């Protein structure tokens, strides 16, 4: 099918984008990388009257800012992969970005786009939860910051108001004795995840025991979700022994109730959560030890 007709506006700044959103109301849709919106338009699953193209906005390059890595919304996934700054300071993000789609998707797809689109199986939103990132939102009244963990509501829906736009995402930089890991199961290379798990582990100053373990899951609910808190908290103060991690993984999996779709049943997804949680937590602990902790 060919998409339904629409008007097209190019804007060169976020104020202009917000203004256009306000002017056209529910008729309007923002166009960033277009890798998810494009097919929805072509299949007439979305039929906005006005498309506001924000690609002309020059919002700069990723940069370090007070313990955060500031990633402007129009940063393409390809940039995340190639940026030495990111591989050094938020290595999880670079690793995750390289798993997104194919080279064409990564060349066009943007940080703001993937967050605002809120596909529950998308990799980067999942990582943003694990790393406790912040989403910088631009609206009519200026900017506000929302924790990634509060940002996603349900399928393709976020806390963004109709006149708001994602301006940047801020990721806390890697600290000493912090380790990370990402794993996903895909049915075909480069496709959306059936289940994806992002983990981040912070060791105590002793470099041996775990202070905090954060875990985010994609593909198990209507949005990316955090792993079951109580189970993860039980790792605090432990050395992350295999049996301990295994029982946490089991508990994390049991706390999920994924649905079935064309790629996998809910029960299989839950099983994947257990396996991938165990694998990512194990790797994150190992990385944390190598990153200034006590290597065993």
């Amino acid at each position, binding site marked *: 099918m060919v998409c339904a007709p629409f008007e*097209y506006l190019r804007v060169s700044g976020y104020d202009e984008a917000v203004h256009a959103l306000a002017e056209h109301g529910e008729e309007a849709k923002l166009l960033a990388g277009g890798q998810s919106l494009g097919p929805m338009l072509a299949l007439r699953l979305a039929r906005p009257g006005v498309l506001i193209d924000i690609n002309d906005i020059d919002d700069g390059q990723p940069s370090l800012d007070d313990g955060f890595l500031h990633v402007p919304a129009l940063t393409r996934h390809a940039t995340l992969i190639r940026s030495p700054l990111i591989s050094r300071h938020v290595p999880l993000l670079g690793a995750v970005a390289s798993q997104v789609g194919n080279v064409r998707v990564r060349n*066009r797809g943007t940080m703001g786009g993937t967050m605002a689109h809120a596909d529950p199986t998308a990799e980067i939103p999942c990582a943003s939860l694990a790393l406790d990132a912040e989403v910088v939102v631009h609206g009519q009244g200026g900017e506000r910051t929302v924790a990634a963990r509060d940002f996603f509501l349900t399928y393709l829906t976020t806390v963004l108001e109709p006149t708001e736009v994602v301006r940047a995402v801020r990721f806390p930089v890697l600290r000493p004795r912090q380790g990370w890991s990402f794993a996903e199961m895909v049915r075909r*290379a480069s496709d959306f995840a059936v289940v994806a798990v992002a983990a981040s582990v912070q060791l105590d100053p002793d470099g041996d025991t775990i202070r905090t373990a954060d875990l985010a899951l994609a593909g198990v609910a209507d949005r990316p979700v955090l792993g079951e808190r109580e189970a993860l908290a039980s790792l605090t103060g432990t050395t992350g022994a295999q049996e301990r991690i295994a029982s946490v993984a089991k508990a994390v999996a049991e706390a999920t109730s994924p649905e079935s779709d064309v790629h996998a049943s809910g029960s299989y997804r839950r099983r994947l959560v257990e396996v991938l949680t165990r694998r990512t937590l194990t790797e994150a602990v190992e990385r944390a030890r190598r990153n200034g902790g006590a290597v065993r």
Partner: protein
Amino acid sequence: MSKRLISLSVNGRRHDVWVSPSDLLLDVLHDELGLSEVRYGCGEGVCGTCTVEFDGEPVSACLMFAVQAEGHEIKTLSSLLGEDGSLHPLQECFLRHGAAQCGFCTPGMVVTAHCLAERGGRPTREEIRRELVGNLCRCTGYTKILDAVEEYVDTVASRKAEQPR
């Protein structure tokens, strides 16, 4: 919706075309500019038959509107041909290895591989696979395509290595 006149830079040439905002870059290149090597295969950005170079990197022409391409450099497979119509060395590799059967995926495949080679370095076979993952082929089983691309990137890398710094 009213048509507007836009100016596209395609394969180093300027083309002034009247388009509607909803006209895909794919359709304008294929139907209006006669670049039939840019092909509709799925409209989802999945198959890669409409791959073109956009400012030097591969993109899906089915996921861009023509109006978005104004002010950018578009290149299609045709841009690789010599002025006399001769094949590009990468195309020669495809020919030599028999890396096409139905040929429908070939232009997109070559464009993606060419962008990879242009980035420099000597990608391994595994890295080539990774790069071509979004260009689906249903006929060849990929082996001959990988052989062709591998030979080309090796040749380019060797030639660069020989050049004095």
